[in-house]
């Protein structure tokens, strides 16, 4: 089924290559910052880590803008997405769902080497919502199996932004719901600030990527498995068109952030939670906690909302929230469509250790028989 598609892709790559060749001249004529200047900027190589973890970074930028180099390898592979062993023929950035969170500062240059190994079966690309022009980079990064490409874009806007694969036409939603999305966080150079301009700092950051999956079922109602993404395509599109996901999960699988993989924090620690959803609306809620400062839209030039109970992440966007844990215990971080949280999988846990604060809460009377006097 990919023959014609691939032919189109290849043609597309050729014409894009021609277009790229002409860009430097045009840019040099119009922009103050020519490639020659960028070449003199300091460069920093970052090794990405799999979510929910985030690579080490400065909250406040040190020095001036730099070029931050990243490398991501696209991996097509089967991934188990629930405790019943249901398998998704997944497509991933760097082997994880979601792809890794990239962190830079405003006015830095993001330089991504994107690799599509020979072992993959399809062309892929990357569309950065944080970037400007070129279909978010999608038009300049379309690569076939066995190819790599390097894209540079300037991080001109501070915030959390989704990136995703967008190889054209019906491939776009399919690649996204097969796992190909992630996020980049562009921090203000002076760090995060509250509505009064006071600094907001975090002790740790976690990245939660939410995905909706659409797994076809057989006549008996059991989930089907396939030998390759191509074989799953037709059935999957049919389920996708019904707009009812079979799974809504955090970090690629039901239970990916619970039990052994539960997130950890201590009373008094401030955690920044970055939450992305590349395809579908969601509404994060921390059971027993709040959002202290919430950039629901994810864009740091807007003042954060405060003391939220639940916040809204629009499909195709990423948001950020800080919370300082005040009480020990187990916290469930859920999509507060509770059907999606409990039945479909969108639940993470924080295990928080520390001293209990009776002032904030206490059980005045343990469960006991109803008083009859």
């Amino acid at each position, binding site marked *: 089924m990919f023959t014609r598609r691939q032919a189109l892709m290849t043609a597309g790559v050729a014409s894009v290559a021609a277009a790229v060749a002409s860009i430097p001249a045009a840019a040099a004529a119009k922009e103050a910052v020519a490639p020659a200047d960028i070449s003199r900027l300091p460069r920093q190589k970052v090794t990405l880590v799999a979510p929910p973890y985030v690579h080490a970074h400065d909250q406040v930028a040190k020095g001036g803008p730099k070029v931050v180099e990243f490398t991501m390898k696209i991996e097509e592979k089967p991934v188990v997405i629930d405790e019943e062993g249901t398998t998704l023929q997944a497509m991933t950035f760097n082997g994880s769902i979601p792809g890794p969170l990239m962190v830079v500062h405003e006015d830095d240059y993001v330089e991504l080497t994107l690799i599509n190994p020979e072992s993959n079966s399809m062309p892929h690309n990357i569309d950065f919502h944080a970037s400007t022009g070129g279909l978010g980079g999608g038009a300049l990064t379309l690569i076939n199996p066995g190819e790599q490409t390097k894209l540079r874009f300037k991080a001109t806007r501070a915030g959390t932004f989704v990136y995703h694969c967008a190889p054209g036409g019906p491939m776009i939603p399919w690649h996204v719901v097969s796992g190909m999305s992630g996020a980049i966080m562009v921090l203000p150079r002076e760090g995060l600030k509250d509505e009064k301009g006071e600094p907001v700092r975090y002790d740790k950051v976690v990245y939660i990527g939410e995905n909706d999956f659409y797994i076809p079922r057989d006549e008996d109602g059991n989930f089907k498995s396939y030998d390759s993404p191509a074989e799953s395509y037709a059935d999957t599109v049919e389920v996708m068109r019904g707009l009812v996901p079979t799974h809504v999960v955090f970090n690629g699988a039901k239970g990916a952030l619970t039990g052994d993989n539960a997130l950890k924090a201590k009373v008094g620690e401030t955690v920044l939670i970055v939450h992305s959803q590349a395809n579908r609306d969601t509404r994060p809620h921390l*059971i027993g906690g709040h959002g202290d400062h919430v950039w629901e839209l994810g864009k740091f030039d807007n003042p954060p909302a405060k003391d939220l109970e639940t916040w809204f992440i629009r499909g195709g966007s990423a948001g950020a929230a800080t919370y300082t844990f005040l009480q020990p215990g187990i916290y469930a971080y859920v999509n507060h469509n509770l059907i999606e949280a409990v039945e479909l999988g969108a639940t993470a846990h924080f295990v928080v250790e520390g001293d209990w604060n009776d002032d904030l809460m206490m059980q005045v*009377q343990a469960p006991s*028989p109803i008083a009859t006097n």
Partner: protein
Amino acid sequence: MSFSYTWIEAVAAASVSVVTAFTGIAWWNAPQMSTTFETVLVSPGAFDFEPTGEFVANGAEIDPGDRPVVFRRPIEIMKFQVTLGDYQRCVSAGQCEAPNTRYADTEAPVVGISYLDAEAYADWYSDLTGEGWRLPAPEEWAFVAAERFAGEVFTRGQDPSNPAIAWIRRYEEQILLDREPDPVIHPAGHFGPNSNGVADLGGNVWEWTSGCYTRIEQDSDGNSVGAPYQNCGIRIAEGVHRAYMSNFIRNGKSGGCAVGTPPDHLGFRLVKDAGFASGLARLGQTVTKYLSH
């Protein structure tokens, strides 16, 4: 049976102790049976059993410790869990609701069964055979399960000044159990017999017992304070670990704020009360049902 809280269970226990001599003797004409079950007769004995239910002292949950339980008469119990094939006969007879399950192996245990379903089956099968079949009490299940019994695998004690400590510890204990869910339905006998010759105990199908949720207040000397609280809308299922579940639940599931390891599947097996005793026990059950409606 020293920790049964319903009088009906006391009746059942008493009746078992009276009439073991009649075991296997049909002293009235049994109706035509479409299903027979292989049973195992577990010899009388004594063992230490940590009572079910919650024990509370000074507003915090405490560990009640083990207590001796004596069975003076044998327990006759189904060797295998009730299978889908067995259960379907009750569904066909219009006396049981269809199970909440998607597989079709009639030789495998029926799963997707609530406590109420299991009770309906026991009633139907008792009526069909004229025998006294019922769910085992937790103590009976534990005694029969012997080395396969797990019960309360999580620490129960709690620090009154910081409820989160026990909460987190239980969460970590669940992780330490390190048990991968096993959703596949296996044929009866897959998990093999235990030392008593009873098959599949502690496999991936949890079994309903007749035990109800209870809560007992204790003073500092360990004496009960006031009447125990009992809720029979919540029943006890035994398996890899003990699960307290609402009596209408057919599939245990975790998620959201319910921080717990759910049973993979819910099924059941029955014990048989002998001859005269069963008549007494069934009379008791009928009376109980009448009173509770």
